[in-house]
């Protein structure tokens, strides 16, 4: 809405969603853009789905939005749920090999969804599917799944490499900066230019 881009980051509590959102926001700020973000903490977080929203543009008023232009999902089920934030457009960057199985599925009451690619295609959503765990492991730590995905998302977001670097340096603690820089680069490289398209 009004030249503002909305990126929603989704996953399960403890996956580093708030950190990824902070890097994204700092990077947008480094581009000289106005940025607002919002998240919900507290009781909603205990083992629950987490949603963090970052909005940037020339002037951003509201910190929240029902629809996103890009969804970054740290987990497959949350990515499937995140499709509803996109509607009939946009891009979903999803860690498709990461599955955190909810209790209702373990108890056999629900099925874990396996229709992400089909539904994304039906709705005209561009799906960037990554084995983010493998890339994070290659970078040096499984905990960097969030930054791998951010690296992949960087291919569809209009920030310079320098702005992303400034975002990473501003947010990531110094002693784990290097491994996160590697994770970011691996995520970025994993997205081929043809996947991104015009």
């Amino acid at each position, binding site marked *: 809405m009004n030249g503002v881009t909305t990126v929603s980051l989704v996953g399960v509590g403890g996956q580093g969603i708030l950190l990824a959102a902070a890097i994204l926001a*700092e990077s947008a700020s480094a581009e000289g853009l106005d940025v607002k973000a919002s998240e*919900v903490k507290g*009781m909603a977080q205990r083992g629950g789905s987490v949603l963090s929203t970052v909005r940037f543009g020339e002037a951003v008023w*509201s910190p929240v939005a029902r629809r996103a232009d890009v969804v970054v999902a740290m987990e497959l089920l949350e990515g499937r749920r995140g499709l509803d934030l996109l509607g009939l457009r946009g891009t979903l960057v999803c860690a498709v090999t990461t599955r955190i199985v909810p209790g209702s599925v373990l108890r056999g009451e629900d099925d874990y969804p396996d229709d992400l690619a089909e539904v994304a295609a039906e709705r005209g959503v561009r799906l960037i599917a990554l084995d983010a765990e493998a890339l994070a492991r290659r970078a040096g730590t499984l905990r960097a799944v969030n930054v791998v995905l951010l690296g992949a998302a960087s291919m569809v977001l209009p920030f310079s490499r320098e702005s992303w670097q400034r975002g990473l340096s501003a947010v990531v603690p110094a002693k784990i900066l290097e491994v996160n820089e590697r994770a970011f680069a691996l995520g970025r490289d994993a997205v081929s230019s043809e996947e991104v398209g015009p």
Partner: protein
Amino acid sequence: MERTLFYSGNEAIAHGAVRAGAGFACGYPGTPSTEILETAAGIPGVHAEWCINEKVAMETAVGASLAGVRTIVTMKHVGLNVAADPFMTLSLTGVNAGLVIVSADDPGMHSSQNEQDNRNYAKFARIPMFEPSDSQEAYDVLAEAFALSEEFDTPVLLRSTTRLSHGRGCVIPRVPIVLEPRDYERDISKYVMVPQYARVRNRLVLERLQRLRARSESSPLNVLEAGTADFGIIASGVAYTYAREAFPKAWFLKLGMSHPLTYGKVVRLYQQVSRVAVVEELDPFLEEQVRGLGLPVIGKQAIPADGEIDQDIVFRALEPFLTRKPARRRRPLMPPAPRLSAPPEADPGLPVRPPVLCPGCTHRSVYASLRRQKLTPMGDIGCYTLGALPPLLALDSCLCMGASIGMMAGFNKALGRKAAAAVIGDSTFFHSGITPLIDAHYNEAEGLVLVLDNRTTAMTGHQGHPGTGLRPDHSRGPAVDIQKLCEGIGVRCATVDAGDHPALDAAIKAEVAKPGLGVIVALAPCVLMVREKAGEIVVDDERCNLCGVCLDIGCPALAPAGETITVTDVCTGCGLCIDVCRRGALSYAGASGAGAEDAG
């Protein structure tokens, strides 16, 4: 130029307060207010402390203000209910150095037991209120709030909501304000609220309200913003940002200082446009005041009176009113029935993730024992409130902080027997569980009080409390021993390792059998602070008959798999499932057979 910072509203409030010369910060943790004090504790030159509850925080803040130090006190919306007693009379005494009270409201109840609009407290106490709409405004407004507090000799309410407190935005830092010291001066007629002095102060409060309204008229925080459309919107706080995004062409009366309301600017908005709407979350707080001026207004008949709103809700709600020709109205204007928020959207068929007690949480051990007793469990507020949800269904009530013990006492007194137990966390016990325990002892109430002592205020993110001695700057002070405290009152008390399920179970059984009142402290540090796997748990498929006893404890690590149970990798190895299994089907890896010997 200094670097633009990217602050949450809570961080902005803390930094803005210190920039404005605040030297003292206190409060009690509560979502969404908690990070204000945590941030303040990390800024040099400010003393920050968690108080035992919001009432004590309010009183501590008043003391610091009288001593001449600008002070900020923080709490969530329901916390101000706890602090309402000192708060209401503080309006009469006024302050010395500036005193800002932050109330962080939670529309939509993301993490709260109710949804209340604390703007009403500003009106109730006749004090000024500020409602910033983003992080920069939150940062900047503290200077004006402290200055106003001192100029008008009044506490000031700074009202935030979840989306301001936990939203983030760019903040350009400002030059710190240098203050002249303010000495404390004895003034008995101002600070001693006996009736003859209070009557005089009360008149001054009413006069002050008039002067504050004049200030609100001239305040640059209340801005009439020109638009090109023939309609105007009155809004404050984060609701302003939603309205601004939904209707970029509208006229706006943006209220940064929303109490007392500027009548003059409201009337001037009506002179510019033919239709006016008030966009506000929760109560028709501004709307009713506009109606009081005899002006027609679109408000709660369009904007839901419950839950959170956003730009889409605002647009869809107002669009039909603002593009349509205004109806000709007869006076008097009857306020229309308020609209409610849309019911939750139909689930798209995907599995949900409701909040649950963490794997390895020892609250589960308490609940597994407690439900074997024929007692009505009165609950309280904290992580352990999640025990009320399926499959545990372990609590019958959750009213407010500290309610469990008084409710238990009343229930048991009324029935004349030990029919109810109280379940209360350590931080909540200190917050407001001690006085009802003393009362229960004095009134000779029967009952069992279970203090779930996980050595922290877990739900809000592991803050310290008097039982741990941990302070917000991570230093340690003296700690209060719950067992000695109970024994000092004269109440029987035992402390049991909550991780030792058989011992806990035996202690609860023994205490229930005794007459009178007793406390059991179920002690085990929060599993999120331990993060050490106690052992690998394996399932003997031959012994398991899928009876479901272990599944009834609601552990996210256990799941049925075909004819047996599977233990997933979120298991912490706490071993509660081994203890509750009647067939010895679960055991620690390498200790096979141990479970079988225990099976009776």
